[in-house]
């Protein structure tokens, strides 16, 4: 088990199910009082990403906090993010990346599979030098929680040289400087009721203008015998954001967004045995006919019970309810041998409404969502679970104009119909932690009613359709069960079959430094689950991935997946897709890291001989991409430590007809990505240069399109890092056999930290679009953003 907990510093996984290849070299450590900067490269599948968050928490905590990552520019493969300095003190921090795809699906790096370890950051020496002038005078290395925790440090020998304002005290998971009592040459921090466990403490300061830091002092706090005083510990933030837009010519932009304002607050606390969280988001973008933007959540966890009110995204099982937001009540009673879960509330379904015969816009059907699960056993050994979920469109939630219109004859035409969906599943999982082995299986069946407007079918109608209403000798009237599920002639399919079934099986194991993951998935053509994302109907998918790590030096990932549709053989042709990927990162301490990735995608269609189709057109498609990269944190450059990353990628794709033997498309592409981050030692200046170029060549038409993107950013901290003005410039140019166009962005902004734990960011952005071939398309936009963030 211990080996599983070893930090995987280099991870090159392919998020196979999300078709993403992401490369990340973990910094492995953090420095108290400084943001942890993270760089992520999406080598494959970047265009499908709608957003990436870095999620972090203290090791041992169960609550994730998130910071959004930013792409250098829309064409760049680089994403940047930070774990804020307020989140790191002296305790270990673990983190992962959450990817959100445009189709609503989400995934994690490292994979959230119960066996791949998270990235872990450990305390590192801060910048500057170790100074033994800080002397611990409260030197009990082991205390009882009853006695209280005292950190008393003398800096007598440094008293005349240290800048008292520069002293910062870090204890456990936070900066406690403001709670520390200072005298001329001694400081003291006290916690009357500390939590038992290991507590680390450290001090940083400036002595004669140079950065110094103290040794790290470790104290073991043993559980006290006194009754806990139930201290309420809390952390969180209150935020406000405003976006104000200006457009030079509204007709020339794809969208003219309204100004928007939002405020949100997050509170995480614990009181004795109870952990609680409260989240609130209110936005001016809220529209009852669109996807909800406002969010509110209140949750409490005590040892046997979790209860959440408001917005929550429970995951009961893969096929029934997984990751989809429900606004209502969620409760889970859990013991070592039995788990009962209940979720009931409102969910939403995106719909396309029509005011005439053609699609007009998007709207949202509210749904009543109910899900329940009973589970025997637990994740650490064996578990068996039965889950049921139902999603029913609430007819009254949608205005009439959004689901019907009157045609020329004055007849009402229904364009969106309320639906009813039910899924029931059985799952089991065996986990043998000692053998690092995990295997599981889930099978689910679904029912979908595509139009509940007519109500449940009557017994008489059933007889008209020749259906028997007697099951196992019991007469059943669907109208009696309409509250549970509406059965009528709009059932899809009318009579349940294997097409309504989906199942998967997986085996995950760790052996000889390998994390192996095998997964097989079959989804019937009529399987529908409105509580999940990304279930691709009528397909079978086999996926094998492996990640090999050798210490912190090398990680190699590889995998193979094959997808085949037409599972029920109802269609005249069957499409198969195969993907092979491999990637590696090599990092030798104090040397540059080297990375490479390879992706091969092949697809073909085959005729279903059972169905005669003269229009069958056999084609094959191929796409290959390779990338190589090198990166280094060049600390040897005097006064300007520089983080550098360069990558080169190339590949091609084509679609080929086999009868006659000809290409319908044949493209080649290549590109270079370059990013350089400089942190000047002598002055508080940070610069960023990011450049990417790509060329796409169509070999059939000999047309070549080029894209170049340059991003420059500089920030300069003043007034003891409390104000950080910055300026950034981005230029994206498109050239070649396409309209010559350029996008220029200039941003001026300031980040300020006026009071403790408060950040105020103001940003003015100006975008200029120029079309060299058609100047009538030119336009300018301005965007002003304001963000206030107060953490506590």
């Amino acid at each position, binding site marked *: *088990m211990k080996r599983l907990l070893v930090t995987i510093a280099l991870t090159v996984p392919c998020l196979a199910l999300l078709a993403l290849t992401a490369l990340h070299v973990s910094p492995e450590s953090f420095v108290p009082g400084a943001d942890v900067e993270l760089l992520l490269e999406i080598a494959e599948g970047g265009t499908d990403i709608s957003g990436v968050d870095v999620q972090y928490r203290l090791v041992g905590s169960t609550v994730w906090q998130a910071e959004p990552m930013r792409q250098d520019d829309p064409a760049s493969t680089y994403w940047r993010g930070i774990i804020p300095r307020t989140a790191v003190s002296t305790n270990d921090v673990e983190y992962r990346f959450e990817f959100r795809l445009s189709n609503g699906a989400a995934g994690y790096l490292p994979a959230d599979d119960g066996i791949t370890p998270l990235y872990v950051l450990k305390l590192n020496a801060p910048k500057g030098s170790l100074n033994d002038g800080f*002397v*611990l*005078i*409260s*030197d*009990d290395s*082991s205390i*009882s929680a*009853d*006695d*209280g925790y*005292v950190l*008393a440090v*003398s800096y*007598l*020998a440094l*008293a*005349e040289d240290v800048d008292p304002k520069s002293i910062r005290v870090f204890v456990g998971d936070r900066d406690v400087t403001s709670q520390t*009592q200072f*005298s*001329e*040459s*001694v400081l*003291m921090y*006290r916690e*009357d009721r500390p939590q*038992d*466990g290991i507590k680390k403490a450290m001090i940083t300061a400036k002595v004669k203008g140079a950065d110094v830091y103290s040794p790290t002092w470790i104290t073991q706090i*043993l*559980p006290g*015998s006194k009754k806990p005083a139930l201290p309420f510990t809390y952390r969180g933030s209150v935020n406000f954001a405003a976006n104000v837009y200006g457009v030079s010519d509204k007709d020339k932009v794809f969208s003219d967004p309204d100004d928007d304002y939002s405020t949100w607050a997050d509170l995480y606390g614990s009181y004795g045995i109870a952990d609680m969280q409260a989240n609130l988001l209110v936005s001016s973008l809220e529209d009852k006919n669109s996807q909800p933007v406002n969010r509110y959540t209140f949750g409490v966890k005590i040892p046997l019970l979790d209860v959440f009110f408001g917005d929550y995204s429970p995951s009961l099982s893969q096929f029934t309810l997984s990751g989809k937001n429900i606004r209502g009540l969620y409760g889970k009673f859990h013991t070592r041998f039995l788990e009962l879960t209940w979720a009931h509330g409102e969910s939403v379904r995106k719909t396309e409404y029509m005011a005439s015969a053609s699609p007009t816009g998007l709207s949202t059907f509210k749904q009543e969502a109910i899900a329940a699960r009973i589970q025997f056993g637990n994740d*650490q*050994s064996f578990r068996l679970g039965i889950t049921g979920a139902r999603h029913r469109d609430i007819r009254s939630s949608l205005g009439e104009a959004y689901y019907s219109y009157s045609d020329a004859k004055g007849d009402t035409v229904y364009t969106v119909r309320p639906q009813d969906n039910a899924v029931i599943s059985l799952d089991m999982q065996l986990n043998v*932690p*000692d053998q690092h082995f995990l295997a599981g299986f889930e099978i689910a069946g679904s029912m979908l009613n595509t139009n509940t407007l007519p109500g449940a079918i009557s017994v008489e109608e059933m007889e008209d359709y020749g259906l028997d209403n007697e099951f196992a000798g019991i007469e059943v009237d669907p109208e009696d069960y309409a509250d549970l599920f509406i059965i009528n002639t709009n059932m899809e399919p009318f009579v349940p079959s294997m097409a309504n079934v989906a199942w998967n099986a997986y085996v995950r194991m760790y052996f000889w430094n390998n994390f192996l993951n095998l997964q097989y998935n079959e989804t019937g053509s009529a399987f529908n689950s409105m509580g999940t994302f990304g279930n691709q109907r009528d397909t079978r998918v086999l996926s094998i991935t492996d990640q090999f790590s050798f210490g912190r030096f090398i990680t190699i990932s590889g995998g193979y997946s094959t997808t085949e549709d037409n599972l029920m053989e109802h269609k005249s042709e069957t499409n198969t897709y195969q993907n092979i990927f491999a990637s590696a990162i090599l990092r030798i301490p104090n040397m540059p890291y080297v990375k490479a990735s390879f992706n091969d995608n092949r697809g073909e269609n085959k005729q279903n001989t059972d169905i005669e189709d003269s229009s069958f057109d056999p084609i094959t498609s191929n796409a290959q991409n390779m990338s190589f990269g090198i990166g280094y944190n060049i600390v040897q450059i005097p006064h300007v430590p520089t983080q550098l990353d360069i990558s080169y990628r190339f590949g091609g794709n084509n679609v080929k007809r086999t009868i006659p033997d000809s290409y319908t498309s044949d493209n080649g592409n290549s590109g270079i990505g370059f990013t350089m981050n400089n942190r000047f030692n002598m002055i508080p200046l940070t610069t960023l240069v990011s450049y990417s170029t790509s060329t796409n060549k169509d070999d059939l038409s000999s047309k070549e399109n080029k894209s170049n993107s340059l991003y420059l950013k500089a920030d300069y901290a003043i007034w003891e890092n409390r104000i950080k003005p910055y300026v950034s410039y981005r230029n994206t140019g498109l050239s070649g056999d396409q309209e010559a166009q350029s996008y220029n962005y200039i941003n001026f902004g300031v980040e300020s930290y006026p009071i403790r734990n408060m950040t105020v960011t103001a940003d003015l952005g100006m975008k200029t679009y120029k079309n060299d071939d058609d100047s009538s398309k030119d336009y300018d936009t301005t965007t002003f953003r304001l963000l206030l963030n107060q953490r506590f």
Partner: protein
Amino acid sequence: MKRILLISVILLLATALLADSVAILSASKGKVSLERALKNLKFKNGELLQNKDVLRTGAESFAAYKYIDASSMIKLFSNSVVTVNASKEGGKLSKKVNVTKGSILTQVKKGSGTFTVQTPTTVASVKGTEFLTKVDDDGFSTFTVTDGEVELRVLETDEVQLVGKGKTGIVSPDGGIRVRVSSADDLDEIQKAELESAQNEEREPIIVPVLDDAGNRKLIEIHY
């Protein structure tokens, strides 16, 4: 006006110097009081002590404090009265312990600033030493050295005597000084005092939290 300003500045500086912390109270059991500027203070372990602070221990009580240069530990046994003194000299701390009554055990590391223990009759200067100081009700000051060497200077006569390891120096109320080999009773007295301070501690079990393979938190209790 200038004089008022000057006096105000001097007073402020003096107050700041007085208010500077020179030691930390690292342990206290039983009846222990802390007096500052003639007022008894409420305190907890870890309290920062200032110049002229007076520590008193009652019957079956114990206290210990450490100077901020971490060079010395002073343990006060039952029925003792001590005044904490220190001053900064060239980045080092010059420490002085005034013992009016009772027994204290002093442990001083070598290489730190000057360290003296003063009783009503004697000043003991030490460098890297462990010794017991006792002032009894009859006014006798006794210094039992278990490690290093102590230089005793009688206040009334300015007579100086060195007391080495394993020896005991006794100064009478009239200034008479006598050095002899420490008797078993002298050493027993240290052990007795240490034992008494230890017995005052509640022997609670040590509870060590551990995680089992399944990640469940378990507690191991160690009784001793």
